[in-house]
Each structure stands twice: as structure tokens, then as C-alpha cells.
């Protein structure tokens, strides 16, 4: 038994599991921020009175949502970086990290947009009409009246998108972010295939521990912030 724990300790010394999780948390954090901003803009486009903007927003969501994330991440590395030589940071690793963040954000913005749009649907049309009737132009009405209520109605689907993003952040491996969890896990299994089950279990548990609080917090928030009518 002592041998077993000694081996395990050695495994954890050799592979930085905590650091790998931290990488995925960072990928998720930055991608979530950018996706939230981009998704909000897309949602605004989709509810705007201008037909060409609505079309562009709809096209983005349909194209991106139906493209596999792996394809987008590989596109970021092979096309954006290799072909067009777009460099986002001086160091190799930082550059791959940022390309992955952008790829994750582009993909999840489509889902954020749809989550916000579902929130917009919870806002009665009379709210927008009243905003227009007092002379607010579209953007002011959206910013001051519609989105504040829509966000409260979209906390639960936004939470689900965040959970998906956290798990999907492992796809950054396809974009050469080789120190994140999925890549680290594979290396560990290759190194100690005899501990296969344990290694799997540790990584699965790590994600469960990260995901559960997100669900709890978003459920709590969406109850607390619900708009009373």
C-alpha cells in the first residue's frame, strides 16, 4: 500500500495536474469573457431592426454552431497562425494559448447569443414598446430595458454554456496547448498505463468538482435575480 501511494506521489511530481487544471480554468475564463461580449453583440444584431444585421447574426450562429470545435481550433493554428502569420503573443506557448482562447470564444459566442436570445424571449414585448414609446432609440432601449431583464432570464442557459466551455477547453489540445488537462492525462497514461483507472478517475473528479459549483451558483443567481412582474 505504501508503495502505491509513493508511486502516486511520484506521478504527481512528474506531471503538473493542478497546473493543467489551472490552464483549463484560464482558457475558460478568458474565452468566457470574450464569448459573452461577442455573444451579446450577436444577440443585439439578431434582435435589431436592421435586416442585414439580423441576417449576419443569424448566419454567424448557424455556421459556427454547426462547425465542430476541433475544426475551429485547428483553423486558428493552421490558417490564422501558420498561413496568415497572425501572432498574438511573442512566446510560442502564450501564442497557442491565445489562439485557443479566441477559437473557444468564437465557438461559444454562438451559444451565448442563443442563451441571451432565449432570455430576450422572457421579456414581454410591452417592455420594448414602452421603451420605444418614451423615445429611446434601439441601442438605448436594448441596453437600458431589454438586456438587463434578458440577462436575468438567461442565467441558467448561460451557466450551461459556461459548463460546456469548461469541458470543451480540453479541445485546446488540438491547438497545441499541450499542457492542459486532456493532454496531461494522456501523457500520464502513456507513462503509467498500469494506473489507467486511477488517472481517469482523478481527471473526471477534477471536472466534477469544477462544474458542480457553476450549476449551483447559476441556479441560485437565476432565482435571486428573477424579475418580478
Amino acid at each position, binding site marked *: 500500500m505504501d508503495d502505491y501511494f509513493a508511486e502516486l506521489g511520484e506521478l504527481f511530481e512528474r506531471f503538473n495536474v493542478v497546473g493543467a487544471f489551472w490552464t483549463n480554468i484560464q482558457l475558460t475564463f478568458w474565452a468566457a469573457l470574450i464569448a459573452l461580449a461577442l455573444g451579446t453583440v450577436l444577440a443585439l444584431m439578431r434582435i435589431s431592426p436592421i435586416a442585414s444585421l439580423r441576417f449576419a447574426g443569424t448566419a454567424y450562429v448557424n455556421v459556427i454552431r454547426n462547425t465542430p470545435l476541433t475544426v475551429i481550433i485547428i483553423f486558428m493554428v493552421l490558417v490564422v497562425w501558420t498561413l496568415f502569420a497572425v501572432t498574438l503573443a511573442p512566446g510560442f506557448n502564450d501564442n497557442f494559448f491565445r489562439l485557443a482562447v479566441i477559437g473557444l470564444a468564437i465557438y461559444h459566442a454562438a451559444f451565448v447569443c442563443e442563451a441571451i436570445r432565449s432570455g430576450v424571449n422572457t421579456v414581454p414585448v410591452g417592455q420594448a414598446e414602452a421603451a420605444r*414609446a418614451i423615445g429611446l432609440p434601439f441601442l438605448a432601449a436594448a441596453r437600458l430595458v431589454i438586456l438587463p*431583464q434578458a440577462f436575468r432570464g438567461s442565467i441558467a442557459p448561460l451557466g450551461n454554456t459556461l459548463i460546456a466551455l469548461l469541458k470543451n477547453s480540453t479541445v485546446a489540445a488540438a491547438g497545441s496547448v499541450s499542457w492542459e488537462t486532456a493532454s496531461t492525462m494522456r501523457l500520464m497514461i502513456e507513462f503509467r498505463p498500469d494506473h489507467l483507472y486511477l488517472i481517469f478517475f482523478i481527471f473526471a473528479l477534477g471536472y466534477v468538482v469544477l462544474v458542480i459549483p457553476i450549476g449551483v451558483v447559476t441556479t441560485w443567481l437565476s432565482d435571486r435575480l428573477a424579475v418580478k*412582474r
Partner: protein
Amino acid sequence: MDHEAITDEPVASSAPRPTSGTATTDRATGEPLVELEGVNKHFGALHVLKDINLTVRKGEVLVVIGPSGSGKSTLCRAINRLETIDTGTIAIDGQKLPEEGRALARLRADVGMVFQSFNLFAHKTVLDNVTLGPRKARGTPKKAAADQARALLDRVGVANQANKMPAQLSGGQQQRVAIARALAMQPKVMLFDEPTSALDPEMVNEVLDAMVALAREGMTMIVVTHEMGFARKAADRVVFMADGQIVEEAPPEEFFTAPKSDRARDFLSKILPH
């Protein structure tokens, strides 16, 4: 106590006047303020507004009455372009309604609207509901907007509710806040689309009283309502609509006692108490 705050008496003189001061007591000769010419509107195959010609003068109070589905709401909504029209023109104070964008927003600011279902901003306090328009559409400084809002809330008898959320108010109180919110933009004309029909009976009068007071101050008003008491007390003219057309126009007393058209007689026999 709110329910007694409004009476038929002219409103407290301390309150600021909502109108720009051009209102005239001689309503028949006031200048045209809202002009509709040859207005047509379809919802798909349904012809909801049929060649509507209507002029409302400064200071005039017009009551629009008619059976359900006759197009009263659509008419009201077309006047501030919440509904687009197919043909014809609508002008406010000599200015044709712009199609879109900021010019339309500016013009809407001059047209107050009170909805059947109040439509107060659910995430904002009563005070913020009233100050939002002046601050964001007119650029009124915060303090000035708040002072004006409190005066308006006082005028409609809900000053003590200023810091509550709309959901905490009764229907009658919410509708009076909605009136204050519209007045805060100092509109040239106020549109009311069945402002009391979503209210419990005991709350109808508090809202009507606020509207009568407003009418007496010279506000130009277009009111869709079946409240004959209000029409008799405050209206200069009643317009009767049926099937998207204006069938009859007359002063209220004349309309209610001696309607000329069969449609109006038939309609009145259904809503009048016997």
C-alpha cells in the same frame, strides 16, 4: 390614501404643467396637431385600417370607441409608429412620421403613450421608470429629472411609492405611474389605449380622475376607452370605429344620446346599462 388623492378638481397648482404652453381652451380653433390622411393598414389579408382621415387639434380630447377588433389599438399604435402603415400619411405637429432611427425616436418622445397593460419597466423602481426617458432620451441631468419625476408622481397621487418596484404596486397605481412616465417627456399629445380595461373595478376611477385632470389642463389626448363617464366629462369629440373605418364622429353628448349610424346604435345598446 392614494385612492383619494385624485379628484375631479384641477390638479395642485404647484405641479409643473406638462404641455409646452400652447394649449388653447378654444379647442375647435386650435391648430392641427395630429393629422392622419388616407391611412391604410393590413395585417396579411386583414384590412385593419381603411382610409382613415382624422385631425386632432391642440388641446383637443378625442375618445375613440368601437367594437373589439375594429382597429382602435392599431390606430393608436400607428400614431407613434409602433405599427407601420401601408399607405397614407401621419403627421405630428406638421412633421411627417420618420421611417426609422433617431428622428423617429425624437418624434416618439413628443408622443406619450399609456398602454392597457401599463408596461412599467419591471427591473426599475417607480422613480427610475419616470426619470429614464428624460435622462436618456432628452439628456436631463439626474437631479432635475428626479425632481420633476417626484412632482409628477405627486400629481398622480403615487409620490409615496417612488422607491418601490412596479410589481409591488396595485394596477391602478401602476397605471398612474405609467401616466407620470409619459408626462415626464413633456409630450405634445398623449395616447391612451384602453388604460383602465385591465384594472379591477375599484381602481378604474383613480386612473380616470388623473386623466380628467390632465384633460382639464389642456393636454391633447387621444383615448381609446369604453368609459362613457370619462368621454362625457372630458372629451370634445367621440370617434366611433367599426371594421377599420371611422363610422361616426360627434360631440360626446350627441353621440351617446343620438347616434346616427346603425352600427353605433347597435354597439351602444350592448355597452350601455339599461
